């Protein structure tokens, strides 16, 4: 079969229908004609915005992990926990599988995601497009579903409500940093256009 495809042909990842991708104006999205799946987006100024937001998120990630998240004051006795401290408490209790799960989903995978996005985007911003970046982007894609910082934040709120009847609840700087981290990561995800990675290097960027 000698089927020649137009350059802009793509297959829907949810229903496999072949269709042509229209030229998208900034801010426009293309959806599958059959199942409505999101096929492509053209966020304006994608590279710069994603990079700025991801760098901000990296700083917030450091704050969210270095300072205490929440604390408890019970008749003058005070307990404060960091994210890693909470994982350690669970680990030392013998709950190793659960501690590992929390470590991965709240700490390691979000870190990997941020680091890999920077590894891919910084060279791209400097005009260096290399096929060696592809495995890093594949790693971003595989860790993304496992980063669950926003669920962790809701978990914190639930546990604080549970404890509010027996002690005074304290919110640490890391709590607010984590809330801001979730916001910036969401915005970075919206600003990111993965097609940037696979297109030819931008004009004037050098060969």
């Amino acid at each position: 079969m000698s089927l020649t495809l137009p350059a802009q042909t793509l297959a829907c990842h949810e229903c496999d229908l072949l269709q042509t991708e229209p030229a998208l104006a900034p801010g426009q999205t293309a959806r599958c004609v059959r199942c409505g799946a999101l096929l492509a987006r053209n966020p304006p100024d994608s590279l710069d915005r994603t990079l700025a937001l991801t760098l901000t998120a990296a700083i917030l990630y450091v704050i969210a992990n270095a300072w205490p998240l929440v604390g408890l004051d019970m008749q003058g006795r005070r307990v404060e926990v960091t994210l890693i401290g909470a994982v350690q408490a669970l680990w030392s209790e013998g709950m190793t599988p659960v501690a590992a799960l929390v470590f991965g989903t709240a700490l390691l995978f979000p870190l990997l995601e941020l680091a890999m996005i920077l590894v891919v985007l910084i060279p791209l911003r400097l005009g260096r497009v290399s096929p060696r970046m592809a495995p890093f982007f594949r790693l971003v894609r595989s860790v993304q579903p496992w980063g669950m910082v926003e669920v962790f934040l809701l978990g914190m709120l639930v546990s604080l409500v549970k404890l509010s009847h027996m002690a005074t609840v304290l919110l640490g700087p890391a709590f607010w940093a984590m809330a801001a981290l979730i916001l910036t990561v969401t915005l970075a995800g919206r600003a990111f256009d993965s097609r940037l990675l696979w297109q030819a290097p931008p004009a004037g960027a050098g060969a």
Partner: protein
Amino acid sequence: MSGVMPAGGRLTAREAGLASCHVCGQLARHVAHRALRCPRCRAPLHLRKPASVSTTWALIVASAILFVPANLLPMMTTSSLLGTQRDTIMSGVVFLWRSGSWPLAAVVFFASIVVPLLKILALAWLTASVQRRSRRRLMQRTRLYRLVEFVGRWSMLDIYVITLLVALVNFRGIATIEAGPAAIAFGAVVVLTMFAAMTFDPRLIWDPLAGPDDLARHD
């Protein structure tokens, strides 16, 4: 939103003998019985996720089994001056409800009981309907799959609540909280159902619309 024109009538990539890369979307000619890699990003290429139906079934059955101890065994043990109290997921919800924080009780009930149950049942129905090559309710089933994929992560909520309670309530002699065996079973349910949603291939829902020659050509 702008419209997209179908190319070559209503042909799927599979019918055209093409595999689309799950990472970068690149289309590449598919050769049967050959391990292929994407020419653009080197990711392994498949027409459909390999062994999707059987893997998804195995993961659904495993999570359904583990869902039982996750709900029956204690999730946490609270030791205080008043004595020792064991809580299951459900009694934790009841506690929140009774203490007046009913919105949070609803959130925890939804995330810990409704979502895992919905995921197990929805994925079982989707996989069974794909196996029957059902041509009905294609759009509804696709939407259900998107919903399952989207809400799945929120069932991790109770695992995080336990983690923080254990770390925070550590006042020797006054009150301590320990995680119970249900936490391990529940964590496993969340992870297994997430894997099940990932191994299920939504394109299988639409495949019966393609001609029977499509069936004969590939596995």
